[in-house]
């Protein structure tokens, strides 16, 4: 199974994602420059964090029209695994691969700290190795991670199991105090209807080694690898 990390001008978590997949997970990985027009040969695409195109106009608004994006959309529509982290999540919503939008934190502050995530859906390629309600310690680093979606769509997403992670306190309670950015329903990560596209504001690639304070993020990548191995057996 081969991972691809898409590099936009202004991406700055691409090296972290690459390092985690190659050196910690031990899986093949290559960078994909945004000017490429094909993602052939890759099995899971990672859209990393950063400030693609300076986040001009809106976060992800310009990156979503990068030359590589039609191939990413096509890959996703055909069931390919796509993981958008932070700015990558913003790009996926702008591209219409995930519902809703991300905008300024209600605090108007850039929040850079560990958060506790509660796993809401384990029936996805990204979370199948986790337990329902499991708590993960994974850091955030963003100023515009306030997830919004209209109430009707939110209800449909809940019914379809598209809410994958919520910000929780250390006891797993979903409280306003545990919400770092004002997201509706404390939402930290969502998937599409077919569950092959995941977007999340927290950075699992920054939580893959004990030295970094948590190894919980690695569990997502292990899930992806297990899913792939099982599928190709």
């Amino acid at each position, binding site marked *: 199974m081969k991972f691809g990390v898409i590099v936009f001008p202004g991406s700055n978590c691409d090296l972290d994602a690459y390092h985690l997949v190659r050196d910690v997970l031990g899986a093949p990985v290559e960078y994909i420059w945004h000017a490429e027009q094909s993602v052939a040969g890759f099995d899971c695409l990672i859209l990393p964090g950063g400030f693609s195109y300076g986040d001009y*106009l*809106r976060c992800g*608004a*310009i990156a979503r*029209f990068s030359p590589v994006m039609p191939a990413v959309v096509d890959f996703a529509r055909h069931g390919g695994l796509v993981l958008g982290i932070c700015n990558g999540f913003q790009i996926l*919503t*702008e591209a219409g691969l995930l*519902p*809703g*939008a991300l*905008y*300024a*934190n*209600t*605090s*108007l502050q850039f929040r850079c700290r560990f958060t506790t995530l509660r796993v809401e859906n384990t029936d996805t390629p990204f979370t199948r190795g986790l337990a329902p309600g499991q708590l993960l310690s994974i850091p955030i680093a963003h100023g515009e991670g*306030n997830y*919004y*979606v*209209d109430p009707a769509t939110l209800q449909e997403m809940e019914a379809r199991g598209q809410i994958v992670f919520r910000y929780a306190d250390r006891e797993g309670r979903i409280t306003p105090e545990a919400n770092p950015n*004002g997201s509706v329903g404390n939402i930290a990560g969502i998937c599409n209807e077919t569950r092959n596209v995941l977007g999340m504001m927290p950075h699992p690639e920054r939580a893959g080694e004990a030295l970094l304070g948590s190894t919980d993020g690695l569990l997502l990548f292990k899930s992806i690898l297990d899913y792939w191995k099982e599928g190709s057996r």
Partner: protein
Amino acid sequence: MWRAEIKVLLKKSVLDPQGRAVENALTSLGYTNVNRVRIGKYLEVTIATPDRAAAEAQVREMCTRLLTNPVIEDYTFTLVEVEA
């Protein structure tokens, strides 16, 4: 040629954190009669076409595709005829 003057605001249903912070600041300055402060964006785009209807259609298309995010934002615009 036309100059499109485009105003973009967060939808009324979407909380505007900047607007709220500024509203609080205005209130603390003693302007206790202000409310519903909204902060948005103003964009100008010059479009080379003789036809007003074509310019209008193009502005709408550009707003939908790139200039705004219809999930969270609304926009209004006016067209001003300008010399080439």
